C-alpha cells in the first residue's frame, strides 16, 4: 500500500508545483538577502538594515507554511517500528488515533494562532516591524486598518500572518489525511522510508561513476 498520496489530477499537480516553487523561492530569497548583506558590509561599507529581520520572518514563513506540504507528502519523521508490525486491522485503528492526535494539535494551534494574530490586525495594527520598509500598495489599507495613518515600517500583522495561515493549512491537510485513512488509502502518517527518498533526491547526481581527469 502506498503511503504517500500521488497527485491524481492536473489541478493537484499544479498546486504541488506552486507549493514547491514557493519553498524554493523563499529559501533562495533568504540566502540571497543574507549574502547581499555580507557583500554590502564589506564591499559597499554599509548595512542592509532590513536584511536580518526580513530573513528571520521569511524563515518563519518557510517552515510554518511549508509544514502542510510535508504533511501532504508524508515527509515527516517518526517511529514506525511498532505500527508496521501490527496486523492491518489494528494498524488502521492505531493510525486513526494518530491522525486524531495530529488534528487535536493542529486545531488547538490554529485557535491559538488566530487569537494571537487578530489583535495585530485589529487594535494593534499600528505595531510595526523594526526595519522592514512598507510597500506603497499596502498603504491603501491604512485608512481601513490604521485610522488613516500611514505606516512608516511594515506592520507586524503581515509577517505574523504565517502563523494562522500555516496552522489552518496544516489542519486542512490533516483532515485530508484522516479522510484517506478512513477510506483505507493510507496507513502511515510518517515517512517510513525517508532514507530512500533522500537518496533519490540527493544521490542520483552523486551516483554517477567516478570521473577521472575532469
Amino acid at each position, binding site marked *: 500500500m502506498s503511503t504517500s498520496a500521488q497527485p491524481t489530477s492536473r489541478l493537484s499537480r499544479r498546486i504541488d508545483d506552486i507549493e514547491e516553487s514557493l519553498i524554493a523561492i523563499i*529559501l533562495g530569497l533568504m540566502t540571497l538577502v543574507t549574502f547581499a548583506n555580507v557583500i554590502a558590509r564589506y564591499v559597499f561599507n554599509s548595512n542592509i538594515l532590513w536584511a536580518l529581520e526580513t530573513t528571520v520572518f521569511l524563515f518563519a514563513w518557510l*517552515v510554518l507554511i511549508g509544514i502542510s506540504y510535508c504533511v501532504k507528502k508524508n515527509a515527516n519523521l517518526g517511529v514506525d517500528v511498532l505500527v508496521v508490525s501490527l496486523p492491518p486491522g489494528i494498524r488502521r485503528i492505531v493510525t486513526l488515533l494518530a491522525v486524531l492526535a495530529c488534528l487535536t494539535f493542529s486545531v488547538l494551534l490554529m485557535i491559538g494562532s488566530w487569537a494571537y494574530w487578530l489583535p495585530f490586525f485589529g487594535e494593534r495594527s499600528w505595531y510595526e516591524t523594526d526595519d522592514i520598509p512598507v510597500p506603497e500598495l499596502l498603504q491603501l489599507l491604512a485608512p481601513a486598518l490604521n485610522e488613516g495613518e500611514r505606516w512608516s515600517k511594515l506592520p507586524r500583522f503581515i509577517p505574523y500572518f504565517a502563523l494562522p495561515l500555516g496552522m489552518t493549512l496544516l489542519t486542512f491537510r490533516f483532515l485530508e489525511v484522516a479522510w484517506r485513512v478512513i477510506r483505507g488509502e493510507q496507513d502511515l*502518517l510518517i515517512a517510513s522510508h525517508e532514507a530512500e527518498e533522500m537518496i533519490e533526491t540527493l544521490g542520483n547526481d552523486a551516483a554517477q561513476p567516478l570521473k577521472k581527469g575532469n
Partner: protein
Amino acid sequence: MAIFVLFGMVIVLLMIGVPIAISLGLASIAFLYIYSDGSLVIIAQTLFDAFAGHYTLLAIPFFILASTFMSTGGVAQRIIRFAISSVAHHPGGLAIAGVFACMLFAALSGSSPATVVAIGTIVIAAMRQVGYTKEFAAGVICNAGTLGILIPPSIVMVVYAAAVDVSVGRMFLAGVFPGLIAGGMLIIGIVIAAKIYDLPSQPKESWTEWFQAASDAGWGLFLIIIILGGIYGGIFTPTEAAAVAAVYAFLIANFVYRDMGPLKAQNDAPAISLFKKPQALLTAWFHRDTKKALFEAGKLTIILLFIIANALILKHVLTEERIPQAITEAMLAAGFGPITFLIVVNLLLLIGGQFMEPSGLIVIVAPLVFPIAMELGIDPIHLGIIMVVNMEIGMITPPVGLNLFVTAGVAKMSVMNVVKAALPWCGIMFIFLILVTYVPVISTWLPTTMMGPEIITK
C-alpha cells in the same frame, strides 16, 4: 512525577506513529492544560518565536542548502578522487580513503545522513568492485558518516548552541580535535582489519594525478577556509558564513565543476564553456537544477525546523514548570558527582537517541542537564561535544538511527544487515565516547586557546 506524565505522553504518541514534531508539541499543550493554566496564544507565540527569536537557528537552512549544492554539484566526487589518490595505496586503502573522504565532506556539510549519501553512494560501490564485502563497506561508511555532525560545521552543534546560549564558534572549534581523533580511530581499526583479513590495496597513483585531484578538489575544500576562517577571522557570523557557503557552493557547482545548471555536459559531450554560453551567468539562478536543489533543501529544513520548533515548545513548558531545577536538586541531593552525572547523561542520550531525531533531542535534553552540569562545574562546551558524540552513536543504533536507513538504501542492504555490519565499528565509537566524556581537554583546548577562556553565565 509531572515530568513522567509529560515524557510518557511523548513516547505513547511516538509509538502510535504520530510524527516526532507533533508528539512533542501535543504533549506540551496537554501538559500545560493538566498542570497549569496554559494559554494557546502563548503556545502559538512560542512557535513563532522559534524562528523570530533564534537568529542562530537561521544557519541551519543555509548549511543544508550548501550541502545540497555540493552533493548534486560534484564536490563529493572530487573529494573522493582526492582521498583515493592520497591514501588508497595502503592495505585497506579504499576503506581508509572512504573515511578520509567522509571527514573532508563533514568539514563542508553539517549533517550525517548527507555525508553518508554523498560519499557512500560512490565509495561503497567502488569498494565492492575491488573485492571488499558489502558488509565491510557499509559498516565503515555508516560510521564514518556520523562524523558529519562532529566535524564543524554541524547542524546539531548549532541547535545545541541555540538551546543553551553558548557560542556557535566555540562549539565548532571544540569539534575539530574530537573529529580528527574519531576519524583516526576508525582508520586505525581499518588498518588492523586489513592485517587480519588481508584487505586489498590500490596501485599507487602518480604525483601528477594526486596534484590534479588535489587542485580539482581544492575549489570545494576552499569552503572550509571560508566557513572557519570567516567565523574566526571575525569576518562574519556563523549564520552569514553558512549563507556565503551556500552561494559559493552554488557558484562552484554551476560555473567551475559544471555538474549542474545550464553549463552541464549533455550526453557525454564535455561541459559547456562559459564563453560559449555567457547567458548562463543569468540563467543559472533560475535553472531547474537550482530550483530543485532549493526545494529539496527547503523541504529538509521544514521537517527539521518543525521538530526543533516543537521541541522548543516543550522546553518552554519544562522551564515554566521549573523541572530542570527540580531535577538538579534531586540529583545533587542524591550525591551525584560529575562522573556519575556524565554516565547518566550518556545513558539518557543513548536511549533517547534511538527514538528521536538528534536535533529535537538536544533541544529537550540540553536544558534539563545543563543547569546540573554547571552546578557540578562541567564545561558547557565539553557537555555539548559529549551530546554530539552521543547523537552520533544514536544515528547508528536502531530503531531510528537515520544513518542506518540511509546506508541501507545506498548499499542496497536490509536495515538489519547494516545494523550487524555497523556493530564492530560502533564499538570503536563507544570507546571514543568514553574518551571524549572523561578527557574534557580534547574538546576544550582548541576553543580556549583560540578564543580565550569561557565565561560561564548561569
